[in-house]
């Protein structure tokens, strides 16, 4: 006789807001994760690139005979060997292998595939290149002047001196000047507004070169199969965009290209564009008819990776005596470098901060991005927002001081609120800005310390204390910069109640696979152990725009949630048939189908799944969902609600300034972030701490030193990342505004924490010393010079907006 099973009741529980360890952490911590370095294919060759020895020169002759003759070398290629080369990049102004000229020191001149790295390096040394030097242009203010040497002179006539191979189709024909891109935005009337202002301030700010310093350097493997299909192991952040673009550059059917992403050792925006090394690696594999692996050295990573966009920026701002902002006028000069990557397009984000972080009724914004022979800039966590926020928040302090208003009060008076639409058309459906301001200020005792430090500026002693506040606005619900900002999900339940989440969203170390799994498990009432994530193969995963714009939790999260909801409906419908009750009375919890009202377990999920699969009306629970956010593409005047949600944050930085050495020590950072809702508390804390430390490096220590086009410090010895003992105490508060569109109310925060650290630090140094420093980073020497009246005089010429 069968004993009746005891009735089981499942208690409600939630994963949301819990501290969930990252799913990839055990593998990474134990050294088992396989990065691109760890992958080797049978028959694989090693690729190496010969880069220019000159900053700007005509290539007169390349002799590869000796390199080709070296035993173990399978391919040596130059532009002359690749007749179908096409220009790559955001403006299609960049040939992977240079034909006529080199325009910066990183330029690719030739490449080798050989049986070992040593042989490939030996072969590079045997290649002889004859150059004829051209005038070097490294100052964007010079490059913009009429009559300046042209970096990309037009027209590129077939047969002309600057001709590309006639057979290679060219989208880019050169430029009559050195201007790569322009951006002009305006709302209101700044002239009228200035006339009505009681206080007006103007400063020029200089934002420097930094680079991502991913622990995993760039690299890829290219492999053609016997049918000519191309498989790439790639660290890209945008596999689906790459697939299409590679097809275009290689003149291939996109259907024959497959991209697999091994575990990626950091991205931060650096892997958002296609770079010459990737195309060259494919050319080498094609020429050698063998798989080719090309991985950068650390020095190469410094020299040949994109940088954050360096900017010279003049800001003019005004307000009335009552503290209301009246206008902002911005002119920026972007050093584009020799070629155009995403750095040139940072104005898309910069203008949002000028126009919309605070309520400003009149705003004029102008950027000119200018070609030089310097390294070129790409996208980097924050995407121009660190630069813009640095200027805006300096002026918030200066204007408050000018009208004698408390600096926090001044910010609160102008802060955006829920329900507002900014001058640029951004719609703030959820907005915790004021709460961020007051929380960060209260938790750090900002007001008291601020007043005290001002009083103590002239007290004896070399060490001065300072406290500064800054805030930021950034997209938190995707960013509609392509016609689609969507992401697809395929969800599959198997006979054992295990779920496979197949998502287009890539994991680059930010914790996306964990947070997406969490959302699915929450919906299906399953433990995290029930989830397997597949997210790294374009032949399997559905479309996604890519990892950028802090979008993955929001967009891929909503997509995963959508697929999970469909799966849940299917499972509950099956259970409703089995138990002959309405599906609405059922729910999923703890791995069981339960009665929603009582929590009584009816059947465990694996058994129900087998019932479904093994019946004569067999059914699979496999769902798909595609999420496209309700945001809009900006119009030609850069107006529109570009994101489905916006993230806000305020950070208070406390410093000690040693006036006898210029050393700035960060002692504490108090951060308050409007994150919509905390999904994985452990994950979001890690992301915010990491972002703050990245911001600290931008503020204090990191700087790529470029002199006459030459990088002087391409190593971790002289490029100073922040080390562990320098990291200050970090106090994080989460403001949960429960965004109506966000998955479980969450918004994206990937970039947010890095954005306002430097701005708040500048304000803290001013609070400590009474000296405003408008250039970064705050290295001891820069600070010491400023304190002793020997600071840099920054100036942006009037022709900036010509």
């Amino acid at each position, binding site marked *: 006789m069968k004993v009746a099973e005891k009735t089981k009741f499942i208690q409600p529980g939630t994963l949301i807001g819990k501290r969930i360890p990252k799913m990839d952490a055990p593998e990474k911590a134990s050294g088992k994760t396989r990065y691109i370095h760890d992958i080797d294919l049978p028959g694989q060759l090693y690729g190496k690139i010969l880069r220019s020895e000159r900053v700007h020169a005509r290539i007169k002759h390349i002799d590869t005979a000796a390199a080709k003759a070296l035993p173990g070398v399978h391919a040596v290629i130059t532009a002359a060997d690749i007749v179908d080369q096409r220009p790559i990049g955001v403006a299609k102004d960049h040939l992977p292998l240079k034909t006529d000229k080199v325009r910066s020191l990183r330029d690719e001149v030739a490449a080798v595939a050989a049986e070992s790295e040593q042989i490939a390096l*030996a072969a590079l040394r045997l290649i002889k290149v004859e150059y004829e030097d051209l005038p070097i242009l490294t100052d964007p203010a010079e490059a913009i002047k009429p009559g300046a040497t042209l970096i990309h002179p037009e027209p590129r006539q077939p047969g002309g001196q600057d001709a590309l191979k006639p057979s290679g189709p060219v989208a880019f024909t050169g430029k009559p000047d050195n201007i790569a891109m322009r951006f002009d935005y305006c709302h209101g009337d700044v002239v009228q507004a200035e006339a009505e202002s009681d206080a007006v301030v103007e400063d020029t700010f200089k934002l420097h070169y930094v680079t991502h310093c991913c622990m995993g350097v760039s690299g890829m493997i290219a492999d053609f199969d016997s049918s000519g299909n191309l498989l790439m192991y790639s660290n890209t952040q945008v596999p689906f965009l790459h697939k299409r673009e590679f097809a275009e550059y290689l003149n291939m059917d996109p259907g024959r290209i497959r991209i697999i992403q091994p575990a990626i050792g950091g991205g931060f925006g650096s892997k958002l564009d296609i770079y010459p090394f990737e195309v060259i690696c494919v050319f080498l594999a094609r020429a050698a008819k063998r798989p080719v692996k090309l991985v950068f050295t650390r020095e190469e990573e410094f020299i040949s990776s994109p940088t954050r966009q360096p900017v010279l920026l003049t800001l003019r701002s005004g307000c009335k005596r009552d503290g209301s902002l009246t206008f902002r006028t911005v002119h920026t000069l972007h050093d584009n470098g020799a070629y155009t990557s995403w750095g040139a397009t940072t104005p898309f984000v910069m203008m949002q901060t000028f126009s919309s972080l605070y309520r400003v009724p009149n705003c004029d914004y102008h950027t000119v991005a200018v070609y030089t022979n310097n390294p070129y800039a790409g996208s980097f966590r924050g995407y121009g927002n660190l630069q813009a926020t640095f200027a805006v928040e300096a002026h918030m302090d200066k204007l408050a001081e000018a009208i004698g208003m408390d600096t926090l009060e001044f910010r609160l008076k102008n802060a955006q609120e829920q329900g507002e639409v900014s001058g640029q058309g951004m719609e703030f459906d959820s907005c915790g800005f004021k709460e961020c301001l007051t929380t960060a200020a209260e938790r750090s005792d900002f007001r008291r310390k601020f007043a005290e430090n001002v009083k103590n500026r002239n007290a004896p002693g070399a060490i001065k204390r300072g406290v500064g506040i800054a805030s930021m606005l950034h997209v938190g619900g995707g960013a509609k910069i392509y016609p689609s900002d969507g992401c697809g999900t395929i969800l599959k339940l198997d006979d054992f109640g295990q779920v496979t989440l197949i998502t287009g969203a890539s994991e680059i170390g930010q914790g996306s696979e964990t947070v997406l799994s969490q959302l699915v498990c929450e919906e299906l009432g399953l433990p995290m152990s029930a989830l397997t994530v597949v997210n790294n193969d374009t032949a399997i995963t559905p479309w996604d725009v890519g990892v950028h714009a802090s979008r993955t939790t929001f967009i891929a999260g909503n997509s995963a949630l959508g697929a999970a909801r469909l799966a849940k409906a299917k499972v509950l419908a099956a259970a409703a048939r089995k138990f002959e009750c309405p599906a609405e009375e059922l729910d999923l919890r703890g791995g069981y189908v339960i009665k929603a009202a009582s929590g009584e377990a009816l059947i465990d999920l694996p058994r129900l799944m087998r019932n479904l699969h093994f019946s004569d009306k067999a059914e699979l629970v496999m769902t798909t969902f595609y999420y496209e956010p309700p945001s809009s593409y900006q119009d030609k005047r850069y107006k529109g609600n570009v994101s489905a949600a916006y993230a806000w944050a305020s950070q208070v930085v406390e410093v000690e300034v040693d006036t*006898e050495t210029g050393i700035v020590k960060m002692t504490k950072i108090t951060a308050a972030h409007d994150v919509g809702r905390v999904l994985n508390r452990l994950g979001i804390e890690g992301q915010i701490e990491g972002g703050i430390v990245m911001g600290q490096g931008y503020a204090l220590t990191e700087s790529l*030193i470029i002199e006459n086009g030459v990088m002087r410090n391409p190593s971790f010895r002289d490029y*100073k990342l922040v080390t562990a003992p320098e990291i200050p105490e970090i106090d994080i508060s989460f403001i949960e505004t429960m965004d109506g569109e966000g998955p479980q109310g969450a918004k994206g925060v990937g970039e947010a924490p890095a954005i306002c650290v430097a701005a708040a630090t500048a304000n803290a140094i001013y609070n400590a010393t009474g000296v405003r420093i408008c250039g970064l980073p705050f290295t001891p020497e820069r600070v*010491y010079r400023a304190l002793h009246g020997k600071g840099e005089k920054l100036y942006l010429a009037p022709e900036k907006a010509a």
Partner: protein
Amino acid sequence: MTEIEQYVAPSSLEQAAEYLQRSGEVTILAGGTDLMPQSQGGRLKIKRTLMNIQHIPELKGIAIDGGAIRIGALATITEIMQSELIKKHLPILIEACDHFASDQIRNAATLGGNVCNASPAGDMLVPLLVLDAEVELASKPDGGLTRRRLPLSEFFVGPGKTRRAPSELLAGLRIGLPGAHHYARFFKFGTRPALDIATISIGIAGTLNNGALSSARVAFGAVAPVPMRAPRTEQALEARRLDAATIEAVAGVARDEVTPIDDVRASAWYRKELIHNITKRMLDHVAQA
């Protein structure tokens, strides 16, 4: 890459000296922490013979020897940091070790290597200078092993250049046991707590009596082609009571005595300012000691 024709690993000082005597074309490998990055970076070409001296017992150890402390050329930074003898008699060396690169590098890097690399910014060199250290050089010119001693202050002739002859091997360093009331402090200025090349470094030593330093020794790093003793600064300091005016005057002499250059780490002007301000700060500490 270099075409190394021969790798040798002698097991005695005599053997090593013999190799050096036979051919001047020898690159000496001890900890390798300077040699490897320099050769990889193309700044140093490894010669035909690479000689690993790690197996030579006479180059090891830290011991008292005839009124002096002898530190073998192969003593690692970690060994020096952990040595009870050094802690007791030469704590200034511990201060320098504590700012020396990272744990991993300290475990491999040797004192002899730091001295022979002769970087103007070498972390151990400034404290050794103010301790009046001597180098002990071994060679085998005519069949017999001979040793000569040279004050460290005369050893350095330029960046990476010393008075060590190609046929000589640095066997160790000798430092006289400090007497009563000996005072010695080291300060390294870098942009971060560790893992940094000094922007400047300062060593100050002497016998401290009634707020004045006699037999004063001052040395500076990273402000001249070699780690330098500063005789004019020493003279200004010698046996003077350290009141505010004296301290200011000495700091001024120090600023004028150094001859730094501009490089990626700092400008010459800023280095001079640091020499002035930190000398002043260190002398304030002496005055309060």
